[in-house]
């Protein structure tokens, strides 16, 4: 038996989490370094997965398959296709930056508050989330996926509720209240989605007699497993609801702004760039593969919701006064694009959506982490408290601008490629929806530039006049992300090469072909 590479990719951060948590209380720095090293080792493993993966080979590769709960036919079944590989790599890539950016976020306060911030716990929880996210991407057994999809809520809950921004406009007490509100809201929303999905998972087992993704999909494809139309639709809805909450799709989105606002910037990145991707990924993998007919049936509604998300998220981002909330609503808009791409059912749309997941992860990380650095300097999240930062901290402002430009999908940066692919992919089949979604790019420019103008330009406010520029550690966090944004914007081929075959498979699962150009069709 070959080395279980996929298990190792998830097990390493899990063991790292335990080890980090076990570091004695006084050895804070050691815990940080341990977590960083573990995340880097995980990255190395993920890169190995990436290298060993053959885009033109079998659909699921590096598979592992062991019996687990025999009575219920649950198998410990892992395997990655091109889409999963890309997302595993993204996750493993972002975690070291998140750890590095949050280096001091969980330091105990020297004076004042008596809250004890367990540094060890913070980094252990991050690694735990990584382990669970990675295994969710790798699972090809519905039950295994479900377990980790739900379990990651627990460390996330503690990360949101336990660690907030150091300084808060209304004092520590209010901050703690708002934080726990956000954490509970996050938990309840996602639990509700998860419970409905659990019902659907059980229903699926009753109907199909198996939890194995490939078995069910094969059985459906060759006709041995017949599902009544209404059954399929109900099951689809059960799965989709959970993913739509996680993604999040309008109108199930309201937990995200609260969670991202209250969490520290690195945790906010963890939520939006990593954890939420499981939702959109699962739509692509489970909804479309298990329930192709129901997916097609639901497409019009999903697309409308997605386009509402795009415009609504962008409009709300324009109206925000809080930097982190603004980024959260921008993310909602971007998730609308991803979901639109998934359900456009064209190769451009789905490749674009997958690419979008990767690029959005990187671009949001860049913007949000810089925003976090900014907020930690001034101790306020309110846009109105800033002004003229460009003059005192040009590097900070410059990186913030690049993050913003990536958010508004400037050509030359990675998100443009994915956004355009999603738009084209949608347009070829649903022109009206494509055109409405295009308004999103104007609104994206509006909220990004307004944010930049209000915080970075204009006369220097006295409160920011002594603001230090980015430190070496912070540059180390941002610079690689920016390099990646530019590289993937100019040369996205390495990613599209991996993703394309998987997308082709998914499209054939739902029996869809790309529409032909009008000129050709006329001939």
């Amino acid at each position, binding site marked *: 038996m070959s080395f279980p590479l996929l298990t190792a990719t998830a097990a390493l951060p899990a063991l790292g989490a335990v080890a980090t948590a076990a570091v004695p209380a006084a050895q804070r720095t050691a815990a940080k370094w341990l977590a960083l090293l573990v995340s880097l080792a995980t990255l190395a493993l993920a890169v190995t997965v990436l290298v060993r993966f053959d885009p033109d080979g079998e659909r699921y590769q590096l598979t592992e398959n062991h019996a687990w709960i025999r009575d219920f036919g649950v198998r410990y079944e892992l395997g990655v296709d091109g889409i999963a590989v890309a997302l595993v790599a993204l996750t493993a890539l972002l975690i070291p930056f998140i750890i590095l950016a949050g280096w001091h976020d969980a330091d105990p306060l020297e004076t004042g508050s008596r809250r004890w911030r367990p540094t060890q716990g913070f980094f252990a929880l991050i690694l735990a989330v990584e382990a669970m996210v990675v295994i969710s991407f790798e699972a090809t057994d519905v039950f295994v996926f479900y377990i980790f999809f739900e379990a990651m809520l627990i460390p996330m809950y503690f990360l949101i509720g336990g660690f907030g921004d150091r300084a808060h406009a209304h004092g520590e007490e209010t901050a703690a209240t708002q934080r726990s509100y956000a954490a509970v809201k996050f938990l309840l929303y996602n639990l509700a989605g998860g419970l409905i999905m659990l019902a659907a998972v059980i229903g699926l087992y009753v109907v199909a007699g198996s939890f194995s993704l490939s078995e069910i999909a094969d059985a459906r494809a060759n006709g041995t497993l017949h599902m009544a139309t209404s059954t399929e639709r109900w099951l689809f809805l059960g799965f989709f609801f959970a993913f739509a909450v996680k993604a999040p799709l309008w109108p199930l989105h309201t937990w995200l702004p609260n969670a991202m606002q209250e969490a520290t910037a690195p945790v906010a990145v963890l939520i939006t760039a990593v954890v939420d991707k499981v939702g959109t990924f699962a739509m692509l993998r489970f909804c479309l593969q298990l329930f192709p007919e129901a997916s097609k049936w639901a497409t019009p509604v999903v697309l409308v919701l997605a386009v509402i998300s795009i415009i609504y998220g962008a409009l709300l981002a324009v109206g925000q006064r809080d930097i982190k909330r603004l980024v959260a609503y921008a993310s909602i808009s971007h998730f609308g694009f991803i979901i639109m791409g998934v359900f456009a059912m064209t*190769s451009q749309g789905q490749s674009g959506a997958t690419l979008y997941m990767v690029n959005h992860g990187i671009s949001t990380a860049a913007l949000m982490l810089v925003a976090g650095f900014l907020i930690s300097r001034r101790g306020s999240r309110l846009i109105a408290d800033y002004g003229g930062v460009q003059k005192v901290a040009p590097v900070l402002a410059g990186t913030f601008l690049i993050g913003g430009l990536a958010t508004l999908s400037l050509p030359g940066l990675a998100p443009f490629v994915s956004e355009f*692919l999603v738009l084209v992919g949608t347009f070829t089949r649903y022109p009206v929806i494509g055109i409405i979604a295009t308004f999103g790019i104007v609104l994206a420019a509006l909220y990004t530039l307004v944010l930049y103008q209000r915080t970075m*330009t204009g006369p220097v406010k006295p409160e920011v006049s002594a603001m230090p520029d980015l430190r070496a550690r912070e540059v180390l966090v941002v610079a690689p992300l920016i390099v990646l944004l530019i590289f993937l914007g100019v040369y996205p081929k390495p990613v599209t090469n991996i993703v394309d075959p998987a997308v082709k498979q998914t499209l054939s699962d739902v029996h869809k072909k790309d529409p032909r150009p009008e*000129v050709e069709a006329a001939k």
Partner: protein
Amino acid sequence: MENLIAPLIAAPLLGAAVLLVGGRRLDRAGHWIGVVLSFVSFALGLVLFADLLGKGAGHRTLTQHLFSWIPVAGFQADVTFRLDQLSMTFVLLITGVGSLIHLYSVGYMAHDERRRRFFGYLNLFLAAMLLLVLADNYLLLYVGWEGVGLASYLLIGFWQHKPSAATAAKKAFLVNRVGDMGLSIAIMLMFTTFGSFAFGPVLGTHEEPGLVGDASEGRLTAIALMLLLAACGKSAQVPLQSWLGDAMEGPTPVSALIHAATMVTAGVYLIVRSGAIFNAAPDAQLAVTVVGAVTLLFGAIVGCAKDDIKKALAGSTMSQIGYMVLAAGLGPIGYVFAIMHLVTHGFFKAGLFLGAGSVMHGMNDEVDMRRYGGLRKYMPVTFITFGLGYLAIIGFPGLSGFFSKDKIIEAAFAKGGTEGWILGGAALLGAAITAFYMTRVMLMTFFGEERWRDAPTPSPAEPSVEPAAETGGEHTEPHPHESPKVMTIPMIVLAVGSVFGGAFFSIGDRFLNWLEPVTGHDHGDAPLSAGVITGATMVCLVVGVAIAWAQYGRKPVPAVAPRGSLLTRAARRDLLQDDFNHVVLVRGGEHLTRSLVYLDHSLVDGVVNGTAAGFGGLSGRLRRLQNGFARSYAVSMFGGAALLVAATLLMRAV
């Protein structure tokens, strides 16, 4: 030879990267890096030009394929460059004028502590603009298109500490984004219609028509209108013109390079490049001519009322680009002349802006022409170069504007029918107004009495456009002086171009023969002979100059603007377009977002929080049952037990 195309773009891109990433170490010599790389690019352009000239007229197209950019199923976007006569013309204009302006900026920005960054942005602009004109497909063009928008954003807002500059930059980017939306929809339409968006397959060549021929006219009209929207945004055409005036907040070299000579003409490039599509969509062409005609009058009227020298010139730019768009909308009759006017305009307008910059440089960055006057004695070189540019733009016989503008007016008449008369008339009227406002600028700046001596301190509510040279807000009386050589030499070169360019292009139809293989040409049938039209143009010119002389030459210019007629007041406010935008878009948008924020909180979130509150209320009710009386608990226990017994008995009985 085609391998030189990529270095042509790479040189300024490298400069931008080095200057922006290099940090403070490069502060001292950084600007020379920018200048040198810009000249390198120009030299490469000249080499390529010589190479093209050496080939036969039909074979002057070079392509360089670099790599496959976005390959996804049927969607294939490559990074491929295409150099033909049209893009060659632009390359020379961009790198030539660009290099001169780089040089000029060395002097102009000498006292700015962020000069290195300024040159980084300028180089970035050059790279993006070159990418725009050299791209071989619309998606790559789009990259350059937004790239120049970014460079323009950065440069307009270069003095970021001034809120007005930051706002103007944001406005420019946003209005351009509306246009960009048009371009992206056009590309999507092309992809669904043709399955491709590369120039070759879609537009075809002279010998073999492209896929355009197979598409329905409705589709082509839609594509063409979307391209027009894009062009309106980038070229500041009505209804997306509002950003150009505000863009004058940027340093003057930026106004000269980006907002006069090159970037704003990208829309004309787009229309001429997509000629095959427009030719097959007559309705869209009509829309193009209407936009052009309206804008040329709009810009001219605005230009008449502005007292800010740069804003007057901005109005003029808008108007001149209106001419080009009008010509481009005429189809093969006008394509060549649109580009010819674009090139000559590049010379004289850049020269005029540089002259304006030189004046401001000598006048403590004052921009109000009512505080100028009599400057010809103090700045002889600026006066002469500006004067030549002035003569060129109004179309003084023999200078370049005369040749290019006259051709456009002729072409407008040659459109034929009522349309031809209306368009030609508009173009003629525009020529008269051009003569008027340019004479006004000239007289107010260089002639008349010296009004800057007793200049009142500018009120803080109206800060001058340029930062007052770091004088700490104190306004001292200006001492007009000529600018240093590094600034005057580019002005002289541009003045030479604006004098001889038109004649050089027109004699022997050199320009026409050069471009015809790409754009095609058609003579049309003019209802009037060329001589009559030229005569009419001359009459318009004289009338315009005469009115301006009567108003600003004979009488002294008041230092404070008179109230003016209703039209003047409207024109000072850009014909109320901004007010319209403000009321409809800004206010409306604010209300929309604010109410959505409220709704998101109260409705979407409210439903969820309401459910939570409902459960909370229910448990509150249930809590009351626990009243603390042990005996009531006992009752419920007995009751429960009795119920259980009863149920058991009942089950037995059944």
